[in-house]
């Protein structure tokens, strides 16, 4: 049931995303007067943090004055680099978040490489390259997400990152507690925590978008920490404990040894979780942001 709801949410997000992207391309092409290089930059200029938006307008305004397609493309690509990749001024929350995500990405990639070396059976068929590709795509998504949320030094941006960091760490702590003492209530609290922290972010800033941004920060941390924890645990225990479903599957379809089969199963699960945990936490966080942004009515004076 949860899987169907998540799939429906992802599909809805994809449809909304495609519609928004189409509208953005049309608007950018209109602003650019049909020039492709200018359209490209007009599309990425909004990625600049709010306090840098005027600079985006300045770069955009230069483009129609540059003669020569090559020169215009060179200028537009340089400006796109500034808008998308150059971090701009960062506060400590941005540096901490960025540090966590970069470390998490490096750890995920390193653990995957280590697994392929330690368990040669994982490379027995060609499917491992598909998994590596999937992992690369997901990790690139994390890198892009980190670049997006670690930008900006407005009070809202800083608030969102602080609550988002707290949410991500709380989620991971609760998952660890659940690992030690598996209780349904801990799982429930773990999944409610992104909602609570996003609600607090929205409440403290009075803005829903701050709550949503906090949810995204939480999602990045939660997904990476969860996945790295899962893979580390898998390697430490050689895929043990083997659940009955895995053993049954191995007996029916498995090749090689049970350890490699169980490790492969867990690694597939970790990549899936790397993609699905952020979706689930963002979904919960968006709900929290909506709740937190609802203005509190002050009691009427008699």
């Amino acid at each position, binding site marked *: 049931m949860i899987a169907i709801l998540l799939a429906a949410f992802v599909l809805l997000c994809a449809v909304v995303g495609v519609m928004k992207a189409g509208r953005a391309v049309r608007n950018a092409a209109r602003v650019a007067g049909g020039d492709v290089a200018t359209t490209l930059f007009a599309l990425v200029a909004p990625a600049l943090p709010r306090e840098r938006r005027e*600079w985006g*307008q*300045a*770069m*955009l305004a*230069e483009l129609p004055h540059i003669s020569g397609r090559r020169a215009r493309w060179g200028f*537009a690509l*340089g400006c796109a680099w*500034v808008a998308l990749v150059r971090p*701009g001024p960062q506060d400590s929350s941005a540096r901490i978040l960025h540090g966590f995500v970069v470390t998490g990405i490096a750890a995920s990639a390193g653990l995957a490489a280590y697994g392929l070396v330690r368990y040669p059976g994982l490379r027995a068929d060609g499917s491992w390259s598909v998994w590596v590709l999937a992992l690369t795509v997901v990790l690139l998504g994390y890198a892009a997400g980190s670049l997006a949320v670690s930008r900006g030094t407005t009070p809202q941006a800083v608030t969102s990152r602080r609550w988002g960091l707290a949410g991500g760490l709380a989620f991971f702590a609760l998952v660890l507690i659940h690992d030690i003492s598996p209780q349904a209530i801990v799982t429930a609290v773990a999944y409610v925590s992104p909602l609570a922290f996003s609600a607090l972010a929205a409440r403290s800033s009075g803005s829903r978008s701050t709550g949503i941004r906090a949810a995204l920060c939480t999602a990045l941390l939660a997904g990476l920490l969860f996945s790295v924890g899962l893979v580390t645990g898998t390697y430490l225990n050689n895929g043990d404990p083997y659940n009955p479903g895995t053993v049954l599957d191995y007996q029916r379809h498995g090749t090689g040894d049970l350890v490699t089969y169980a490790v492969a199963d867990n690694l597939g699960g970790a990549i899936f979780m790397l993609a699905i945990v952020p979706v689930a936490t963002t979904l919960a966080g968006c709900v929290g942001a909506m709740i937190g942004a609802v203005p509190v009515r002050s009691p009427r004076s008699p």
Partner: protein
Amino acid sequence: MLRALAARPSEWRHGYDLCLELGIKSGSLYPILMRLADRRLLEATWETDHAPGRPPRHLYRLSPSGLSQAAELAQPSELSRQRLVELRGVS
């Protein structure tokens, strides 16, 4: 960058012209301009009389503190002069 802007201190300059003059790419130019503006060394304004059908461009020039910084950098300080003399003595 400071030297280029200080060469014609009262003149407002366009971003692309600075790129051409200094031989740097826009990906390097704008972060420098942003940092200069953040440190209040650069003044920026929008063109008021721009070509019809084209958006107004952003213009840049050094602020008074930017000009004094540029002048400071252009003239080696007493300390660096002494250091230079020391280095020459060593060699």
